[in-house]
């Protein structure tokens, strides 16, 4: 266990822990509301945070698969948030 190895291991561990806490906080806002737009904003933040968590996990494991999963999460989050926001404006998703 060299110094650089422990440095990068601890940095990855810290990033994973902090991003997990951030995801919990975003979930808290999604659950607590109080209004629908707060929930949508919380959900959007949750998507971004989990996407970053996947990128960090990819760095830890060293495979490109997590990167692709992260990209899918990003695209899905975008579509979901746009649909929900449209729903809040109009009351209908498809017009």
């Amino acid at each position: 266990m060299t110094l650089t190895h422990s440095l990068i291991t601890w940095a990855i561990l810290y990033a994973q822990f902090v991003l997990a806490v951030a995801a919990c906080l975003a979930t808290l806002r999604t659950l607590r509301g109080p209004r629908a737009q707060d929930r949508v904003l919380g959900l959007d933040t949750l998507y971004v945070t989990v996407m970053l968590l996947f990128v960090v996990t990819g760095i830890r494991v060293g495979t490109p698969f997590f990167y692709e999963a992260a990209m899918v999460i990003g695209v899905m989050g975008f579509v979901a948030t746009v649909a929900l926001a449209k729903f809040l404006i109009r009351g209908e998703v498809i017009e």
Partner: protein
Amino acid sequence: MKHLIDLPLWIAGPVAVFLVIGATLTLLGTLGLVQLRSFYDRLHAPTLGTSWGAAAILLASMILFSWVEGRPVAHELVIGVLVMVTTPVTLMLVGRAALHRDRAEGRGDVPPARKTTGSDQG
């Protein structure tokens, strides 16, 4: 985690620093999301995570994988561009949804709609 063992310091240092910065900024953003009082204040909080939070973590990933694979790896740029292009759209739509709902309910603390617009176009 075999790929992390023989890293030189000049790779491991920047990667560690960028990871810590990115994760901390994202945490601060979500902390603001929970802590701030009004919705319009909370609208600003996630931009910490989507600007330098995301950029720093993606940079760390780019540096590390470029070293591990022995060739420049830049596909993280695609996620970066995706986040950069989609965040304005989502935040603008959520903000407008909130304005629309607040106006429809007649809350006094938001600016009124402009009379010149017939209807807000979607």
